[in-house]
């Protein structure tokens, strides 16, 4: 299972992380090493084994469908990032977060 530079770029796009050609090449080398490590799994016979995601036999707990949280928008928006592109104002306006236009 070997990767090439286009695989790296495709994965980086899925992960929404920008990667230039030099970085992609370095990442390719390191990731190929890690993939070599995980190839060891293919030698194991796992037919019929139920995948394990949790050590205890538990089910998702449910709760009453009622509102329990209070509105803390002002507190949370204190962590808003700077708008950028020349402006150092916080990326908030009227309780909303500011992002580049999404809908045409």
């Amino acid at each position, binding site marked *: 299972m070997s990767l090439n530079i286009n*695989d*790296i770029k495709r*994965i*980086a*796009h*899925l*992960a*929404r*992380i*920008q*990667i230039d050609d030099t970085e992609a090449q370095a*990442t390719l080398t*390191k*990731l190929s*090493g*890690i*993939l070599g*490590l*995980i*190839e*060891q*799994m*293919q030698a*194991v016979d*796992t037919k019929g*084994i*139920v*995948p*394990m*995601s*949790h*050590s*205890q036999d*538990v089910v*998702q*707990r449910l*709760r009453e469908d009622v509102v329990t949280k209070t509105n*803390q928008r002002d*507190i*949370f*928006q*204190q*962590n*808003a*990032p*700077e708008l*950028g*592109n020349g402006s150092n104002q916080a*990326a908030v306006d009227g309780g909303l*977060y500011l*992002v*580049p*236009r*999404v809908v045409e």
Partner: protein
Amino acid sequence: MINQSLKQYSQMLANKEISSVELTQTFLNRIAKHNPSINAYIALDEAKTIAQAKAADNKIASGKAQALTGIPFAQKDIFCANGWKTTCGSKMLANFTAPYDAHVINQFDAVGAVNLGKTNMDEFAMGSSNETSYFGGVKNPWDFDRVPGGSSGGSAAAVAARLCAAATGTDTGGSIRQPASLCGFTGLKPTYGLVSRYGMIAFASSLDQAGPMAKSAEDCALMMNVMAGFDERDSTSLNHPKEDYTRSLEKMIGEQPLKGLRIGLPKEYFAEGLDAGVAKVVQDAIAQYKKLGATIVDISLPNTQLSIPVYYVLAPAEASSNLSRYDGVRYGHRAAEYDDLMDMYIKSRAEGFGAEVKRRILIGTYVLSAGYYDAYYLKAQQIRRLIAQDFTQAFKQCDVIMGPTAPSTAFKAGEKADDPVAMYLQDVYTIATNLAGLPGMSIPAGFSNGLPVGLQIMGNYFDEARMLDVAHAYQQVTDWHLAMPKGIE
């Protein structure tokens, strides 16, 4: 003043030999003196800390003191603490002030313990040396050229250098136990689900667990009494009855306190890859356990080597999902220049994350992507069950399992930073316990070439009290856990 146990501090506070403010100030002064060179702490807020100490003194004066009231602890910077910078060791959250408290922070607050500050860590808990932190590496107090281990490297250095009474850490693949081994103190990763992950910044949700890092098993037991317990805000928190983890420590006295205890030694943990000096210290510790009355049973955990590839599929996969929330929209790093929304995402994330975190997100994205999910993620989950079954089988023949915690003593800073796979192999003895959800701890067992060596104790689900007893019995007849590095008086 800096080498006492939690019980001793509690007694001193009760007897008015010292106030919480005085005790706290003692540690703050040590931090001011030594932290610039050791870099154990990322965030300090003397005013907040002293205010907590004053409140603790009031609590003590009104007769409401509990075991940890007024005692100052270091908190790993992975726990959201209201009003404190909470960075997770990352540029992504370098300016993030947590607007709420993690459950673990709540628990310490509720008993009147004091928060000394937030400790340094590998970025987003991904690392075994604290070298991936945006805030720089941490020095191992035993040798400033060497790493303290990771990801809880800051907490580790703080405990070893006596820059706190004790500390909290988290362990996803060994991040409490390996630093405990490399820095010569006692650390415990509880059974998965015992300590609530609410407010604990997520790395790999099915593996992450918070736990105590302290100078003794007794200290860890006292901290577990505060940290463990059901929390409805964490959907993976187990409704396990509250326990007193100190309840049978006092029985660990007399000629052979561990008579009847069967200790399993997995042959795979004493094979190739283990440093000879470490092996010798661990064998000596086992011999000591025989003197304490225990019986040794040879066991096998056949899928041990597979735990590394399995972990390096599952943990990055879960991390890629957990870290997708960092998009520069509502909090965290946003790029200073961007053209459109996609550009904002890809630049914010490329700038905010360090190289190791990016590597793991990419691996995780790959193994979860269409066409590869079955071959990688599902396969890893299946082998995970085989690994857990190895332990279930082993615990039919023994009560606890012992072995080395790490394959070597502390390595030099920079030695493994360029080779991710070499770094990953540091976790070979600790990872399986996270995959199986079992409790594991590391206790100091001696030195090799002047550097600490940890003995690992693994137990069955919910067997922490017994593990702590077993560790405590050893600490009653040895004094490795009392050793303190020189040069940081």
